[in-house]
């Protein structure tokens, strides 16, 4: 019996090769805000897409997502829900960027024959899982970018027929999205770092973004075996400067109104990093930690104080203060709509290269709804007041009510420059049922996406190590001299000409009245009979007759 059970245990340990890691990075920002970034990673060396074998026994990996992956043959899935806009110029680059609203992009496996059908069903299922209105994703806001969104995991799929990308810039993120997201964690919000996620604090912030990324990755450096990675990230920016009476002090309790006591018992690693690069001598961390770590992330070498929750010292209350300067983001983009009136307009996208001496190319992707009819011949790209010809343009024109415009360009940004991309558009008149319930609010146009390999100031680490912090290992680094950055611009809010919505009824009433009046007079003319009446006797005669009648005398004629 003993042998049997130990044998069983061995089999179990061999079979259940999944692990869970959690991590929190806190970075005081230049503006006085605090950036807190949670990352939870579940690794499972199984294959959801294997033919003939169904994955059906789950341990740490959430069952609902696993079933979705195998049913829809998903190779890679990235979904993010964001409330607020990331201010790159004030806050620097985020670890994992996301546009305002909801964003979903999915690579399907190349055995899928009906990609559109799978995509439609997948969005419906995901909208159920995350309590979001992802079911509003349809062909009119889905695009297939040819170059901007490459798979982040294993497999160099290049056929963008299997890629679908959609954003819902209007999506409002709130607790009902956070609760199902927390449910996907093995420990829920009962233990580990997730106890900090109290929704009334998380949503009382300048920026909130939660995301789920699923992709196949290598188990080790040799890539001998494949594993599926589920990465759940949550990024918050707290505006403590205004709420903390001007003091540059923060603590976990102040931010989350909770403190950390223990790691999730299922986690193999559970760490808290505090970024102390900017001004190490001014920082005062309590409790102090002997552990210091360095990581190269987004082209910058940062120093961190590391707290390991698995080997606990005491309960964590961090209350450091002070701030320093920040590295200016090398790449930055913004966008606005120009023009007047309700007929035409112009979209301006401005991309800044802040690198003092290096030029580098960026990929700009724009997905514009069909009701803004782009005049692609007016497309101009200027940098330093000179024409800058894109070396690659992929343009897919919109079809009314069927698909949006997709514009992708590879633009070379000169060093220390500002590049402006403008294109004119005409606003379409929609059918009266196509307007949203509050049409005068305007229509959102999703963020444009700037993806680039930005030259790095310091050497990036290309080797793969298991003990690398999670936040620095999301995007694979291919070469030492540059790092990958994706920047999202602001979404646009465009006014479309709106009709008077009571008009159909008014028109019905008016025409009916006109028809009825005309009809009535004709009918009268046709059917009324005219007769000549005998003229009535004059008034004096009638009076006289009246008196005569009273007197009983014969009447006058």
């Amino acid at each position: 019996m003993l042998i049997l059970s130990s044998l069983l245990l061995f089999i179990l340990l061999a079979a259940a090769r999944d692990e869970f890691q959690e991590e929190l990075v806190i970075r005081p920002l230049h503006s006085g805000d605090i950036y807190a970034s949670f990352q939870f990673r579940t690794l499972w060396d199984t294959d959801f897409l294997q033919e003939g074998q169904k994955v059906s026994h789950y341990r740490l990996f959430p069952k609902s997502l696993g079933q979705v992956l195998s049913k829809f043959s998903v190779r890679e899935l990235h979904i993010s829900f964001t409330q607020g806009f990331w201010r790159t110029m004030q806050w620097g680059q985020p670890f994992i960027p996301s546009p305002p609203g909801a964003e979903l992009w999915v690579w399907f496996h190349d055995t899928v024959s009906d990609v559109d059908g799978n995509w439609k069903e997948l969005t419906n299922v995901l909208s159920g899982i995350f309590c979001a209105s992802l079911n509003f994703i349809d062909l009119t806001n889905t695009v297939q970018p040819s170059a901007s969104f490459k798979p982040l995991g294993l497999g160099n799929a290049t056929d963008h027929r299997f890629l679908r990308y959609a954003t819902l810039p209007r999506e409002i993120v709130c607790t009902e999205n956070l609760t199902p997201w927390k449910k996907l964690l093995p420990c829920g919000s009962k233990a580990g770092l997730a106890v900090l996620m109290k929704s009334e604090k998380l949503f009382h912030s300048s920026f909130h973004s939660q995301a789920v990324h699923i992709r196949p990755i290598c188990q080790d450096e040799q890539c001998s075996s494949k594993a599926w990675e589920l990465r759940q990230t949550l990024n918050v920016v707290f505006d403590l400067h205004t709420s903390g009476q001007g003091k540059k002090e923060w603590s976990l309790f102040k931010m989350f109104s909770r403190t950390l006591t223990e790691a999730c018992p299922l986690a193999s690693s559970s760490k808290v990093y505090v970024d102390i690069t900017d001004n190490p001598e001014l920082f005062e961390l309590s409790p102090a930690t002997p552990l210091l770590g360095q990581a190269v992330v987004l082209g910058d070498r940062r120093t961190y104080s590391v707290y390991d929750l698995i080997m606990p010292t005491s309960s964590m209350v961090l209350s450091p203060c002070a701030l320093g300067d920040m590295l200016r983001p090398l790449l930055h983009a913004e966008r606005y709509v120009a023009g007047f009136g309700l007929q035409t307009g112009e979209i301006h996208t401005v991309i800044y290269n802040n690198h003092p001496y290096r030029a580098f190319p960026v990929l700009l992707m724009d997905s514009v709804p069909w009701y803004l009819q782009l005049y692609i011949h007016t497309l101009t790209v200027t940098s330093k007041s000179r024409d800058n010809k894109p070396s690659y343009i992929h343009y897919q024109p919109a079809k009314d009510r069927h698909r949006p415009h997709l514009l992708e360009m590879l633009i070379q940004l000169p060093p220390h420059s500002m590049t402006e991309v403008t294109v004119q558009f005409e606003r379409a008149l929609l059918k009266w049922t196509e307007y949203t319930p509050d049409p005068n609010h305007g229509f959102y146009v999703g963020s444009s996406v700037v993806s680039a390999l930005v030259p790095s100031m310091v050497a990036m680490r290309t080797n793969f190590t298991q003990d690398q912090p999670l936040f620095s290992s999301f995007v694979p680094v291919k070469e030492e001299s540059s790092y990958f950055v994706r920047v999202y611009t602001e979404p646009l809010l465009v006014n479309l000409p709106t009709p008077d919505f009571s008009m159909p009824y008014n028109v019905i009433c008016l025409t009916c009245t006109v028809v009825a009046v005309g009809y009535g007079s004709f009918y009268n003319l046709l059917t009324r009979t005219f007769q000549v009446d005998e003229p009535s006797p004059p008034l004096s005669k009638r009076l006289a007759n009246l008196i005569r009648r009273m007197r009983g005398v014969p009447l006058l004629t």
Partner: protein
Amino acid sequence: MDNSPKTENSLTIYPFVVPNLLISYCCILVMPEKQRGRYAALAIAAVVIVVGIPLWWKTTETYRAWLPFSEISELDSLQLQLSVDIEVVFSRGTLTPEQQKKFPLSHVNEKEHQVDVSIPELLTSPSTEADLSLHMLSESSCGSVVVYVIPESSTLLPEDVKVYVGQRRTALLRSPPFKTSWNLKEVLSNLDVEVEQVVSTMSFGHQDIVAALSNRVRMTKVTKESMADSMRAIKSSPGYEITFSLLNPDPKSHSLHWDIEGAVQSYIQPLLNKLAPIANFSVDSQILYYAVLGVNPRFDNSVSAYTLSADSLSHVINPVEARLGSNAASSNPVLNFLLYVPDAHHSPLFIRDHSKRKVPSNAFHSPRWGGIMVYNVNEMYGPEAERPVDININMAKVMGVFLAQLRLMLGVQHTHPPTGFVLQSPGSAGLADWELDRLLWSRSVENIATASTTITSLAQLLDQIGNIVINDNIAQQVSSAVTSLQSAVAELEAGNLAFALQYSREAILASERAFFDPSLLHLLYFPDDQKFAIYIPLFLPMCVPIVLSLLKIVSEAKKRRADKQAKSD
């Protein structure tokens, strides 16, 4: 709107004529002028009635495809005839040579099951074919029954056993004493009672049919037990999801391992393979941490353990269910089986029944939802053990309980054989062939009942609400459901159980697709007051003059007739 062209036509002639004539001929033309106005009013009214109203009706009517209403109403008073092929094999020495001479012979034994006043159930059981050869048939077709009659003195069965039911579709029957002078028919009719008992054990009895129809028919004379059986069993569906969840509320003290994959392979899969003709099953499992029951167990000093009373069990499931998650990939009904390992501070935990006794299996089930088993682990480690403690769960014990619950949920009912019957245990598959047949019989009847209810209520709905658009695809689904239903009934009558089940499943699928089609809802909420709001500005001013002038014409005609009568008098 519709009659305006016509009015204009008549207009072109009259307006100029009328004023000119008026002045000079007014006195002379009084009568023709009145006549003309009357004719014009009548002509306009005629145009409105003959052209306008039909045109308006035609352009605003909703599309309604043809539905086989008469066949559907026939379904409403459906008579099911179930027939079972029964082969009676007489072994050597049971019959005399004279009796053997007269064959083949078959006789039909009919039995009527009155289920409800409105729906009589006609049950034909069984067309007994006497096969006198002792040729052993090893394979018999699905739904049929073979009865071997052995001599009274045979030692094959123990002394007090009258009937032995095997794993397959066979039964051994100890023959009652015959008179040698009887002919075969008399012998068979002598066997009737026993054969009937065998059939009601191995195929279906009155209670099974009643239970299968319980969704459709409100019953009064059903025993409580069979009602409970029918309510416990999950409703018939083309597929089921079976989810095993291990609830570990305390991962800090217990690190639980369960070999669910192996357990499913060795315990659950054989049963599911056997049940494959009924539905598609998919099995999955998950481990949920920090999942707690909805009730705080009470500490009982007398047994020094925590207990859950039977009354509080109904509150246990709700908070757990929020964590279970629905199946994202399919919409089939889910059967949940939860294994709950109580946390270290609330161990051991026992379930008590209504009479305050410990439930030996420490498990309970919720009808049509699934089962929960409490698995205590506090005895597997000492107080000084290092946390978390690695614990392997004994899957044989767990699966024994879950398998029993699964059988209940799937409607494999406990049979109560008459005295003198011996049933062989079902063996490794967990299900004997005849048990499967029982399930197939009741499922076919249930499917037919459900599908016909769906179709009749859909037809009723469509009949009552004239606003609903009936598209061609719905009409097609409805008629395919009706044809499948009819063929299922016919197959049941012919005794082809497998085909009957297949047709009944098709009928259910088609009827549900028709019933839940979203296109039915498109115009449902187009309220009447909006319609009136749109029509009144046009119709009221147009119709009032027409009606008034018609009334005037009628009253004038009446008056004239009265005058004429007075004159003639």
